[in-house]
């Protein structure tokens, strides 16, 4: 469901060439949860961005949900994200002028979601933020904001979930709710690539990858 073949990503920062990823190959089968670990600057977020089609690889091939992301045009990648792939960011990135409920509903503006309001309410119940439905992001705690961002990502019932350190800024209770929701999606058949600084106790990944300085140094099934 997620496959990278010899993927490299280089970019310029001033006069310096940064090797964000260096010939990385990995494979996450459908319905599996993969944990991607590594220190800061090891290339985890770059890898997520490549899988989401938010950036293009310098070389190599990226396949996500049977889509050859590396060859797709921008509009095709946008359509893939709308229909099949959801991204959860460490920094939430909620729309500040919408309520929590409206933030969760945002994906329905680009993808027809049957029963979207009911589904949004169910997700907010599951993630325990129903009481914040009418609140703006600025009025919510960090944990609530992340749970709201996760609910938004899950609205379209995506086949692939790319979560970039979703628990990085959260307290234990919020982190537990978020990871439980992701685990439930795995059991429902979704493929999940979860990025974290370190291994987690509360979630049992099917496979674990470790990145260091842009290289894949470990893959444990």
């Amino acid at each position, binding site marked *: 469901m997620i496959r990278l073949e010899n993927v490299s990503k280089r970019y310029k920062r001033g006069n310096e060439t940064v090797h964000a990823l260096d010939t990385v190959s990995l494979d996450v089968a459908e319905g599996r949860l993969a944990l991607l670990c590594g220190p800061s600057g090891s290339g985890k*977020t*770059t890898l997520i*961005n490549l899988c*989401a089609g*938010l*950036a293009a690889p310098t070389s190599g091939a990226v396949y996500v949900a049977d889509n050859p992301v590396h060859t797709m045009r*921008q*509009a095709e990648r*946008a*359509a*893939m*994200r*709308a*229909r099949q792939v959801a*991204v959860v*960011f460490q*920094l939430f*990135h*909620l*729309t*500040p*002028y*919408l*309520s929590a*409920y*409206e933030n969760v*509903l*945002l*994906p*329905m*503006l*680009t*993808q027809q979601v049957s029963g979207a*309001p009911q589904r949004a*309410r169910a997700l907010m119940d599951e993630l325990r933020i*129903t009481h914040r*439905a*009418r609140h703006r992001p600025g009025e919510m705690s960090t944990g609530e904001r992340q749970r709201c961002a996760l609910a*938004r990502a899950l609205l379209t019932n995506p086949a692939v979930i790319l979560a970039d350190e979703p628990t990085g800024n959260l307290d234990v209770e919020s982190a537990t709710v978020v990871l439980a929701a992701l685990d439930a999606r795995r059991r429902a058949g979704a493929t999940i690539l979860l990025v974290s600084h370190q291994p987690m106790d509360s979630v049992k990944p099917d496979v674990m990858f470790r990145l260091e300085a842009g290289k894949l140094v470990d893959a444990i099934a």
Partner: protein
Amino acid sequence: MTSSSNPLTMHRLLLREMWHSRWNTLACLLVVAASVALYVAMADLGAASVDATRALMKEMGFNVLILPAAADRARYQALDYEGPDMPEEYVTRLAEGRLILAQHFVGKLQHTTRVEEYTVVLTGVLGQSTRAGTVKDPMPTSYVVPRGQAFMGAAVARGLNKSVGERMRILGRDFEIARVLPEYGAVPEDIRVFIHLRDAQELLDRPGRINAIDALACQCPADARDIVAMVRDSIEATLPDVQVEPYYSLLLARHHQRALVARIQLAVLVGALVVAAAALWGLTYQNVSARRHEIGVLCALGFSDARILGLLLGKPLLYALVGAAAGCLTGRAVTTWSGVVAETAPLTPVTTLALLLPITTLAAMLFALPPIMSALLRDPAEVLGETQP
């Protein structure tokens, strides 16, 4: 929790953002409204000014004289009109001419004669011919006189001690004095006796002939340099066998006033456009910079570039439409309620004001487009990696 059947739409998203960044929205609205109001007020003032000048010029009379090619100007100035004449049909040809830079034409048959020992200029006229047909509101130096009647110049009335209703004998025929004209203050106007052209042609035995045409120019382009030559050429192109003698000061005053108004209007329009463009560019840049994470998220959620562009351009579309309408109303209110423009003065037509709406909208969207495109072209991965404000 909101429970509407359609809880979130693109329109709602757009309006929510406009309310969220209301000071930015209000500033954009004010820039558009002020620019449009300025333009409308200037256009109204310009139209009123041109009309006021037109009325003044009308009082001052015609500004172009057309004589037969062989006419002697010196003899003409000495009130000797016994020289060559031309067909009356020339007036019709001028009125129907497509390239003539003048509008009003009066064919005259003039003859200096004596009435009861007083020298008068007998003037036969039909009334004015224009491109729109014969006018019913002749200028002071041109009159529609019924047959068998005469209009007397002020000096003639004084000299002959005649008044309205009395009769006077001209070249052996009696005419009823139907009107004594106001004093014009110039020869030959005050010593004219106007009669119907047909009566004059019969008295002088010159059927179908006239010996001068008065014309009112000019419809010259505002940027024209040698308007005298332009007017002369345009008339001579239709009637090659005439001589065209413009009254320079009248012609130039009229033209310069029109040109001045046109230049002021253009300067105001350009100034308003430049200021509005700079302000809208800056305000839009500020708005999309503050929304860079939102744009990145929309991209990450699968919104196409076209959809995001539509959302971002929706804002200038809305504030331009509302701002243009408000500007039109404000500009018109300024000119009509301030008393600067006379109540009877013509104002910019409503159809022109209506045109300002799409033009302003298009301009506002064009001004806002560069910062929007620059925000849209930013790498979403890079933007989303930035720390949120």
